[in-house]
């Protein structure tokens, strides 16, 4: 019995193949090779797959709310219910003052932003593991997977802002010209949350512990940013430390631009920008590295 053994034979046979032929080239040729380069991320391909991104986003929104009796109403009810809890506990029982902004409006904005932050981070972080099935069967730009998580949460946030706009009209709270900074701070918050989620997603493949600890950490973090209490309640000696958290200064920035609460100090905004950009690059690097072979360990 011959047990065929590997290299010599196959190398022998290998030479029979015509390898002299030029490798195919051209714009439309897909090159598959090992190695890590940032351009592997294929941002143009991600842009080319925007139809696919839209499909996934619409599908997840529909899938999330379709089986419920209240349907899309939950997009609004969820923050409203949480808001109610905080209005009772913080506003009535502890007497937190947020003048001149009415406390319910103050808290609703805070809750919406917090839900967006924690939703984006946890959904993005879990996106690869949750989609392991399809990822191991078919190829499409991998960045689409976490991006879907980001956009689904953005959609929820947009719906909340419709409610906030209504509440602002009802309470007679009007914005000033600083409103032009609103999209900047909101975009910053989205980017920072996404970057954090992306880093966790890349690491979640090797260490699943992240996914266990994450919900707890996210729950605690609501107290680390100005969501359910105004920033002036933070003790003075802690305020510098408090603003080192990019999320805190970004959320305070949203508050400031929307209706003129205290603005975050400039240094903290700059710090948030720098931190987000650096970790953004790091996120793309680790995600690209993980993407190459993540299917092997999913």
């Amino acid at each position, binding site marked *: *019995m*011959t*047990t*065929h*053994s*590997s*290299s010599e*034979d*196959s*190398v022998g*046979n*290998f030479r*029979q*193949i*015509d*390898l002299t*032929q030029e*490798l*195919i*080239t*051209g714009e*439309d*040729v*897909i*090159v*598959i*090779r*090992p190695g890590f380069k940032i351009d592997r991320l294929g941002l143009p391909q991600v842009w*080319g*797959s925007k*139809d*696919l991104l839209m*499909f996934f986003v619409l*599908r997840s929104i529909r*899938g999330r709310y379709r089986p419920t009796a209240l349907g899309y109403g939950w997009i609004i009810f969820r923050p409203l219910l949480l808001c109610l809890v905080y209005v009772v506990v913080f506003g009535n029982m502890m007497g937190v003052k947020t003048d001149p902004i009415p406390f319910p409006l103050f808290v609703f904005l805070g809750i919406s932003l917090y839900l967006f932050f924690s939703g984006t981070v946890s959904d993005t972080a879990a996106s690869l593991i949750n989609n392991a*099935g*399809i*990822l*191991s*069967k*078919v*190829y*499409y730009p991998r960045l689409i997977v976490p991006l879907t998580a980001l956009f689904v949460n953005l959609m929820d946030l947009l719906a909340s802002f419709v409610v906030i706009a209504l509440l602002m009209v009802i309470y007679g709270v009007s914005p000033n010209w600083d409103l032009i900074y609103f999209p900047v701070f909101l975009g910053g918050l989205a980017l920072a949350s996404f970057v954090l989620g992306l880093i966790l997603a890349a690491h979640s493949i090797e260490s699943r512990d992240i996914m266990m600890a994450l919900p707890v950490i996210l729950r605690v973090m609501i107290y680390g940013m100005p969501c359910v209490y105004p920033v002036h309640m933070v003790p003075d000696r802690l305020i510098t430390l408090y603003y080192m958290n990019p999320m805190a200064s970004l959320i305070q920035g949203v508050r400031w631009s929307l209706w003129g609460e205290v603005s975050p100090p400039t240094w903290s905004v700059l710090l948030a920008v720098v931190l987000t950009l650096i970790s953004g690059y790091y996120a793309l690097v680790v995600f690209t590295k993980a993407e*190459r*072979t993540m*299917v*092997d360990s999913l």
Partner: protein
Amino acid sequence: MRDTVISVRGLGKRYQLGNKPYWAIREISFDVRRGDVLGIVGRNGAGKTTMLRVLSRITDPTEGEARIRGRIGTLLETGTGFHPELTGRENILLNGTILGMRPKEIQAKLQDIVDFSGVGKFIDARVKTYSSGMRSRLTFAVAAHLDTEILMVDEVLAVGDIAFQEKCLKKMDQLTQSEERTILFVSHSMGAIQSLCNRALLIENSYLHTEGDTGTVIKAYTQLLQGPDGGADLSQSQGRRGSGVVRFTGLHLETLDGKVIEAIPAGTGVRVIFDYESKLDTFSDDVVLSLVLVGSKGHRLFGMRSDIIRSELRLDRPRGRFICTIPKMPLLPGNYDVVASCLIDRDLADKIVGVCHIAVSDNDYYGTGRLQNGNFGDVLVDYAWACEGQD
């Protein structure tokens, strides 16, 4: 000369098995031209599926390079590029969108896909409620109808009913004939490879063993499985079921008078001989053996079970042979896959599926110099025709 659409150079993929690195494929190089149907053969675990996974970009290679021109459709394992929570219709849309098609283009093909798959009204049910057969039918339909220039198919014939498997083979044939589609086709069925592919490659122990026209490769594969003396070494083959108390370790063919042969001339007698190894402490009086021959489309042609004919078998030695005698081989010339199992005391001890095959060679079965073609079935029986008039 048709242009090259896939070129692979020195491709290798290493996995980490515990602390040990393991090369699933290595130093693989070949070219595929437009319209080729490339069969990929090899034993279980040789690296065929890994290669398709790398070529369809699901996972990266560790070394080497592959270049591909054209949109790739992939059908891996029992075929689920599908999202279980989506309906069949949504999955068709999803797969089309992944391939970069516009919703309108997909809509235009939708009816064809539904018709071909035969899932009918279930198209609006979620895929997770589908049976595995429905799922694989829909996957094949999607892959075959959507706009792919290169189709990679892994063992599509392993599931689904025979009628559908035939439909798939026919469709694949048609795709390459009329649309110049290129197909990479992994199968254990030598018959399917032979009838579909114009070229083939054999992967053995992670390395490319032989590449060339289908006949040459099948011959190389047969020799690989059977060794120079005409027998197959089964001791190393993987993917088996059963407790392993008794294992098949080899297979070869003999004529009724004991001469070793490589192929059975159609209509002659043959002894199919399995070598076995036993780890039984004592003897067993309750041994049931079965041997099934499987045709090119995955259909079982006939089976021979020892308990049906009340063969009383006693196994009391650590090594020996199981012999199945067929007095007259009733099959058309071709390659037939072997499914064999051994039950000891009603427990499955070993089962091999498709790891070896039996070759039937051309012979004048009816003594007329004629044989039916495959359309009339693969099985040869003795028969007579008469015509009687009535008043």
